[in-house]
């Protein structure tokens, strides 16, 4: 691959194309894995360490009906619904006790993740049959990329982010939800049912986790109860690198991280891509302790102070 300089121009284009599709694949995956966690962390200040298992419930909620004979899109809807209901139950029974206890919320949801992953193992066994990836591949030169993973998923990821932007800035619900997060006392005094806002926000976060699970079900290969960890790590790294602003943070972090992940995976192997991405994340945290958006925010504030 390093001799590509000597190769004809066409194959250089092919390599660049492959690198780009690798980037899109990684980008779509990271955005989807992150966005549910980012909403719950950014809006509610709760770290949900069971996020990977929420996604896993989406995967199982999709795979089981699919294997029972439901068409894939319908099975995905079931997956999202199941995860949303699960999220609401968890919010009412566990998470609501931890709204101002960040570290405790991590530990408690960690306990939850152990239980969920192990129960999935006990109930459904060590693996479910995989679902074949729909839509096939496009090939160019010696390379080929999955349309589903490298084109459809990144597009859905962007749509989700746009949808969230509209929801939280343009609708009455979004304004009420943000008011609740900013200042619950005042929000309540203005007649907002803050309890309901918390449940709704958590439900949206869970639904997004479910959506991620549903969409990933056909691209995971074998479906095993320990896959939650894969999602969790990427999601976490992206959330902390992105910083407090949900949408811009997720977008920028996913962009930066997948450049490194894709480059490393393409030129060496997926293991190296993963290592490179995690190392960059560590470095980014050291240089920008508040994440990318936190840094931009404080830079803006300094600018304003200077003027």
């Amino acid at each position, binding site marked *: 691959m390093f001799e590509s300089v000597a190769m004809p121009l066409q194959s250089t284009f092919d390599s660049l194309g492959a690198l780009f599709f690798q980037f899109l694949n990684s980008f779509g995956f990271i955005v989807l894995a992150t966005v549910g966690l980012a909403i719950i962390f950014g809006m509610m200040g709760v770290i949900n360490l069971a996020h990977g298992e929420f996604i896993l419930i989406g995967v199982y909620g999709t795979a089981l009906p699919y294997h029972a004979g439901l068409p894939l899109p319908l099975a995905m809807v079931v997956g999202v619904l199941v995860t949303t209901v699960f999220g609401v139950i968890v919010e009412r029974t566990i998470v609501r006790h931890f709204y101002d206890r960040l570290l405790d919320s991590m530990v408690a949801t960690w306990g939850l993740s152990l239980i969920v992953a192990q*129960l999935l*193992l006990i109930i459904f066994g060590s693996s479910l049959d995989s679902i074949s990836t729909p839509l096939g591949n496009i090939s160019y030169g010696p390379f080929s990329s999955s349309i589903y993973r490298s084109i459809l998923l990144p597009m859905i990821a962007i749509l989700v982010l746009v949808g969230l932007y509209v929801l939280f800035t343009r609708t009455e619900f979004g304004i009420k939800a943000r008011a609740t997060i900013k200042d619950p006392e005042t929000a309540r005094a203005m007649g907002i049912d803050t309890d309901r806002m918390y449940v709704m926000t958590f439900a949206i976060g869970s639904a997004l986790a479910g959506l991620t699970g549903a969409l990933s079900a056909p691209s995971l290969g074998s479906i095993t109860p320990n896959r939650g960890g894969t999602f969790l790590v990427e999601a*976490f790294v992206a959330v*902390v690198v992105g910083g407090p602003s949900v949408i811009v943070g997720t977008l920028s972090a996913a962009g930066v991280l997948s450049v490194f992940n894709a480059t490393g995976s393409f030129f060496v192997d997926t293991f190296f891509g993963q290592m490179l991405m995690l*190392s960059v994340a*560590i470095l980014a945290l050291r240089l920008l302790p508040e994440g990318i958006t936190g840094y931009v925010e404080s830079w803006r504030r300094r600018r304003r102070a200077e003027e």
Partner: protein
Amino acid sequence: MSERNAESLVDRVRGRLEGPNTLGNSTTFWIGFVVAVAALAAYPQVTDPYTALQTSRYFALAFLAISLCFVWGYCGVLSFGQVAFFGISAYTFGTIGINFASMTGATAGLFGAVIVGTLAAAVLGYFMFYGGVRDVYVTIMTLVVALVLNTFMGQTAGSEWAIGAARLGGFNGMTNIPNLTFGIGEAGIVFQTVGFYYAVLFALVATYLGLRVLLNSSFGMTMVAVREDEERTATFGYNVPFIKLVVFTIGGGLAALGGVFYASWGNYVDPSVFSIAFAALPVVWVSIGGRESLLGAIGATLLIERMRTGLSSGIGPVGPEWALVIVGGLLLGVILFMPAGIAPTLNDLKDSLLEQRSSRSPSSSPTEESVE
């Protein structure tokens, strides 16, 4: 005269060991403590060697628990990465011990491994605390470091991944790690089975007492001040990043010591020591036992690990697969219903009972208000 001297010596020692930062400052507590240590010391004599050996593994793991208890419970730094220093030290001990297969080599391995593990913590701590990384970001960063090591060590299966004679071994792990040894040349002791049990028990008790002294010193007070309010502590002129760095480094050293014990216990270490599942365990032990109680954390480690071993062969209808569900459930229950953990909750219960009993006669010594 000599009796009075002895008495004042006991008072002086107790004065160092006791204070508002540690639970258990009464004579009753110390009697109970001595009885418990004596019982643990007698345990290998009354049980079979296999059980004694298993118990010595719990002791090794208890070092991880106290290291997390120290940095999280007393300085507010929740680290998921104590297992990283534990694992680094275990691998270092193996590498040195395998390359210098002698008594001197294994002893050098013990010190070398602890030094390397401690240095790793110091470097990471410097990187984080002087870079302004805080709170939950520290937690994530430490977790990521452990996972990077997990991924890295997992792919070292090839023969090119070796340090001298020591093969890293990928997911199969590093084998033939020497026993815990203390000596030079031909003179020295190799700690095996019951000997190992006593060595680790001794180290654990000594560490516990040492940490109590440290926590009740003025440095311990500063640590607690950082935990309670970083900004205020900084306003009083304390160098908060430096304090956190020192605490994190000491915590790393404790974890590293545990790593040496762990590696020499099974003569083996593999990348699972860096995995998410293993990284979760110290958090579980400390949360359940009580993050502000070293003894609670140690006790929780011993009991939970004992339970996990017990469940590995199944108890009645409950098979080994339920172990993690029970551990997770315990963790969730404790965090929900007694957020401080079991040991501090029991302590509060005891205090309120005593208060009720002695409410007619006002207590002569003023009770310490915990800084909350």
